């Protein structure tokens, strides 16, 4: 099937897909009715179930973000009462972190693509995979219940003794929700680890595993070894709150700093849970749209593992001013600088991949360029807050807020949107409208920078985070930030519309619309329930675009 040679237009994909037609039978129309969806054990359908549920949570969290930004338009606290504002930013944090960012790429794209990329028929434990989704939904219902009951006002960090003793908001319901959802990501991680070890297609050695799978393997290590610690910490807060036992209550002998140690032991690796899958998507997208192998495959792969492992040693940099002794602050600072090195290696390797490539500018590639720039700035500002002296000044100010939004929104969310667009033809068998997609990518990029760059400045000026009112001299930057937030909001609504439209009315995409390498592109779009008619045998290296013989299928 050698495509005819025609001049490339920006809509390269459309040229190739002109003659494509939808396969007769695939995992979407294999069986219908709500039972086939709610009781499915097909990893692709579970990926879609996750896609719908986290999109709901994404917009719920987004609403709270807009509420916070609108409140901060004016220095005085006039839009909402102080209490309402505290609940708004807390629910924004909890929903976005636990119910959107952590499951975003692993649970949707990861679930969908891991078996396809490994040449397997499904994940190792399909029923556990379904249980993982149900745990996510039950946890989500608890969070919504706590929201209806008035919401949580402790910040997404649940710091004791405020969360365990002083707060009278729905902390218990919110804590139980986060506890249950934690097990959803543990089970996802367990599935990914076992599938990667035990169910690779013949011929697929570890060094031929796609980088998307490497990054999800590293993420799963954090799921397995980190999430239980936050689960028990949240449980201890609930134990303290219900029975006033004093584990974190200083008035009867407890130590609030111990809570921070246990909380951040998970919550720092959690930010690597959020960004590592995004790095996996970007490695795939940059290699695919440059039509050449990723530069330094083994370095990029092992830096994912390095991030996951060293990520567990650095949590103390969240506590430089929390009464941590100078000696342990010293140790955490040096380790925090070490964890920055693998991210630097990845960024340089992505940039080097573009060298002598054949680069096209479809939407996923635009998101990848956006990711490169914004993740770079997020990572570099990480060096600011790792230096203890600067962190003493900028801790708990908008500088830190801007830093982690550059990584989470500029990094993970851009990669998530890029990944959704890149694999949309494989998931739905339809092409997304290229023009609208590029417009929304541009809107997201501009809106994002306008929202969060001013926050660096107002942060260093000293504006603390989680402030309902602020001194008037910070208003200029906050107005800019709120303006950016509205553009960002619009930018996020667009994909919802045109992707849903494309699912129904989009043109059929064909097996490999972008004409790229990868086992997932060797099967039909959308794939059959068992992914491959015959288990593929992998012969050549991953991303090898050089004209070797075609991957021979079974």
């Amino acid at each position, binding site marked *: 099937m050698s*495509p005819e*040679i025609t001049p*490339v237009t920006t809509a390269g994909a459309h040229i190739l897909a002109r003659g494509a037609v939808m396969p007769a039978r695939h995992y979407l129309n294999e069986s219908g009715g709500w039972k086939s969806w709610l009781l499915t054990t097909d990893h692709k359908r579970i990926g879609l179930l996750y896609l719908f549920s986290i999109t709901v949570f994404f917009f719920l969290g987004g609403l709270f973000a807009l509420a916070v930004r609108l409140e901060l338009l004016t220095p005085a606290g006039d839009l909402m009462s*102080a209490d309402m504002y*505290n609940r708004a930013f807390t629910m924004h944090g909890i929903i976005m972190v636990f119910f959107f960012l952590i499951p975003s790429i692993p649970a949707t794209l990861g679930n969908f693509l891991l078996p396809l990329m490994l040449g397997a028929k499904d994940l190792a434990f399909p029923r556990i995979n379904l249980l993982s989704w149900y745990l996510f939904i039950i946890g989500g219902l608890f969070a919504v219940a706590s929201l209806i009951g008035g919401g949580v*006002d*402790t*910040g997404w960090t649940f710091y004791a*003794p*405020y969360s365990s003793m*002083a707060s009278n908001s729905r902390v218990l319901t919110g804590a139980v929700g986060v506890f249950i959802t934690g097990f959803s990501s543990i089970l996802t991680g367990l599935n990914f680890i076992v599938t990667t070890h035990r169910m690779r297609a013949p011929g697929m050695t570890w060094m031929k595993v796609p980088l998307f799978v490497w990054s999800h393997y590293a993420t799963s290590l954090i799921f397995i070894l980190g999430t239980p610690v936050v689960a028990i910490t949240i449980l201890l807060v609930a134990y303290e709150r219900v029975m006033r036992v004093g584990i974190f209550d*200083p*008035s009867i*002998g407890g*130590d609030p700093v111990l809570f921070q140690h246990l909380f951040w032991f998970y919550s720092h690796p959690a930010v690597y849970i959020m960004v590592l899958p995004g790095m996996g998507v970007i490695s795939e997208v940059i290699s695919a749209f*440059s*039509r*050449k*192998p990723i*530069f330094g495959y083994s*370095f990029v792969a092992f830096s994912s593992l390095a991030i996951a492992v060293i990520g567990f040693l650095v949590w103390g940099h969240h506590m*430089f*001013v*929390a*009464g*941590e002794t*100078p000696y342990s602050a010293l140790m955490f600072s*040096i380790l925090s*600088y070490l964890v920055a*090195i693998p991210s630097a*290696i990845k960024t340089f*390797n992505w940039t080097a991949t*573009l*060298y*002598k*490539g*054949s*680069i*096209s*500018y479809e939407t996923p590639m635009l998101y990848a360029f956006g990711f490169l720039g914004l993740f*770079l*700035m997020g990572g*570099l500002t990480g*060096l600011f807050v*790792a*230096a*203890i002296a600067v962190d*003493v*000044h900028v*801790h*708990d100010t908008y500088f830190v807020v801007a830093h982690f939004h550059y990584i989470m929104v500029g990094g993970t969310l851009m990669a998530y949107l890029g990944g959704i667009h890149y694999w949309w033809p494989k998931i739905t068998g339809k092409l997304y409208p290229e023009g609208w997609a590029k417009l929304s990518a541009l809107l997201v990029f501009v809106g994002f920078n306008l929202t969060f760059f001013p926050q660096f400045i107002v942060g260093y*000026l*000293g504006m*603390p985070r989680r*402030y*309902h*009112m602020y001194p008037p*001299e910070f208003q200029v930057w906050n107005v800019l930030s709120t303006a950016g937030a509205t553009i960002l909001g619009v930018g996020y609504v667009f994909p919802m519309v045109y992707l849903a439209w494309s699912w129904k009315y989009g043109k059929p995409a064909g097996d490999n619309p972008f*004409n790229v390498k990868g086992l997932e592109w060797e099967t039909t779009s959308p794939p059959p329930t068992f992914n491959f008619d015959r288990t593929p045998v992998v012969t050549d290296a991953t991303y090898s675009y050089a*004209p070797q013989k075609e991957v021979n299928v079974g």
Partner: protein
Amino acid sequence: MQAGTPLFPVQASTMASRVDNLYFFLIALSAFFTVLIVALVAYFAVKYRRRRVDEIGAPIHGSLALELVWTGIPLILAMVLFVWGASVYFALARPPAETLDIYAVGKQWMWKFQHREGQREINTLHVPANVPVRMIITAEDVLHSLYIPSFRVKMDAIPGRYTQLWFTATRTGEYHVFCAEYCGTNHSGMIGSVYVMEPEQYQAWLGGGGAPQGASLAQTGEQLFTQLACVTCHTGGPTQRGPALNGLLGSTVTLEGGQSVTATPAYVRESILEPMAKVVAGYPPIMPTFQGQVSEEQILALTEYIKSLPAQGGGAHGGAAPAGAPAGTQPAVPDGGTAVPPGSQQPQR
């Protein structure tokens, strides 16, 4: 009000410029790498754009040399940043020997400052310029964090513990004080101002010019000492059932179990609230707890009074007391990152 340039707060303390220098170096470094990467990406994206539909990129798989370069250089830069950040931090974390001590108590949604001379202030703090000032911080209910952006200092206020920060204000004027650790409904209202004054103005203000004439902190402590009937056991006479407290702070006290502890304000605070935790050797464990009867300020006042007690030779508090601690000495320092109230010095058995 704040006259600082819009891009960073005014440098109003000795440490501010050192922190800002590191900040500017970091900005320069980040700008360099951002421009480098963005330029490379843009150049490659345009130069190697796809010209034919089935064109593929060159099969380059990587180069060890390049990998070593962009691992080594970031590593070296990282270590430079670490050392620079850590050295400035140590200067921030370790107060100079002679400091003017002011107590700060964070309480849900206000800062209470307590000068040793007796002045009490809420959300306002008057300090002399060019004098090293040390804030000894604690909280009454939940976590707070004393943050003065213009001095580039911040330290959490942890209930049940004493933490400290220090600064030397270099410019007179009024600067913001914020609470930087989320503490509940009115967290954003827990703000105030630091007024840096010339030393003479400060003495005038202290002398009552600006605040009501009241007893010094030590005198308030003395009144409390009698009022709470501490006098009945702790005045050091032969019939006294409690250890004498003269020259206690800074001395080492041998406890019932045989091990010894340095008497710090945290030890005094713990012994007031939980006497059974550390019983001094040779004394019966009969002291009642004062939990709930004394507030944080009152404990500070009592500690201040104990510091001001004239130390007789060989005070009978079961430990080698440093002789001749002159009255009104510098108050004992909460031990650095401040010992945890009980048991932190005990060897683990």
